[in-house]
């Protein structure tokens, strides 16, 4: 029989990307706790990431995106979002540079989490 608790216990981190289309506005980040906040900040300070000139970074809270139900169950879940209500759902060209550099940042984050016991 499937054990949902075991399945959830196996999930060590969740990284949710919701609207990651440009770097001109605020880069809104939800970190589950100070450990992950420090980890994210540390990665953002890396020279190769810093050179990518991410938008102004703001840490905050959220109860609405796909990461929230995981966090509700105490699974470390992070949200990365480009905030700006007037653009939500609207048409904008994908920024061909922002998405890959967001991906670079996420890969760096995954490498850190992967190395944890």
């Amino acid at each position, binding site marked *: 029989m499937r054990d949902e608790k075991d399945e959830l216990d196996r999930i060590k981190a969740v990284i949710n*990307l919701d609207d990651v*289309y440009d770097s001109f506005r605020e880069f809104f980040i939800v970190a589950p706790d100070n450990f992950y906040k420090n980890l994210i900040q540390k990665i953002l300070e890396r020279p190769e990431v810093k050179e990518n000139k991410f938008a102004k970074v703001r840490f905050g809270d959220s109860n609405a995106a796909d990461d929230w139900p995981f966090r509700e169950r105490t699974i470390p879940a992070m949200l990365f979002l480009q905030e700006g209500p007037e653009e939500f759902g*609207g048409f904008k060209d994908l920024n061909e540079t922002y998405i890959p550099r967001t991906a670079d940042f996420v890969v760096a984050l995954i490498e850190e989490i992967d190395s944890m016991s």
Partner: protein
Amino acid sequence: MIKDVPRVSGTPIEAVFIEKIADVYRAMSFDVDIQSFNFIGWELLEPPQIVEIDSGREVFAERVMWSGSTPEGGIEGFVKHRGKFRPWWVGTRYRVNKYAIVGDRDENLGYLLEDHAHGSLPSPMHDMPYMSVSKADLERWRGRDRPVRVHASVSTRFLLGAETANVIATKKGKRDDEIIVCAHHDTVLTNWDVIGVVDNGSGVVGVMKVAEKLMNMETEKTIRFISFAARRIQHGRQPVLYRHEGREGRAGPDKSRYQPR
């Protein structure tokens, strides 16, 4: 395709898109599971209409997802400010002004939300009608000496048993411990001509880029790349939906059930 068409959960075009996402991950040689599930859908039957009784002027109104319907013949009453409304939403600062259309006994007959651009309510199955009206119109009404009287109507329907699917691509690690990288692929419903490139085609492509970079990298932990559906339907509480059952041998969503409603 992300730039071409909206991908509202439960629609035929979303089903096609789900397959295309799965194909991208299959091309990267990941194990792919298409995880079907049912949800409560919502449909706009007749768009909102608001008319100022005194002037006969029609006011532009937008639908608010999960709104109920007005009774047949619509509702009529005065517009009164009723404080702030906090949508089920990211961030903690976002609030919109909430107005009620009130009847002769000061009872709320329906609600008007100021520029509620994203257009959804915190949960499904509201029986009260909600409509979005521009800040300019609402402030104009607020600035009057006497409350403005309006006639309003909207018709909606809830759809039980709508079907959609998450796409789960797996990169096996040395251990069973997992890291999930996810984004929702479905498009928000509003009155606008919305495609959903930003929200959240950008996230879907972002997750694919991460997968591409990790494709040939050995990892300790198993990495799951998930494309969630029904995010904008907001009934999808993903960990509940994120099930391992049926991972093997699942044929994918039954397309015959993705019929226009």
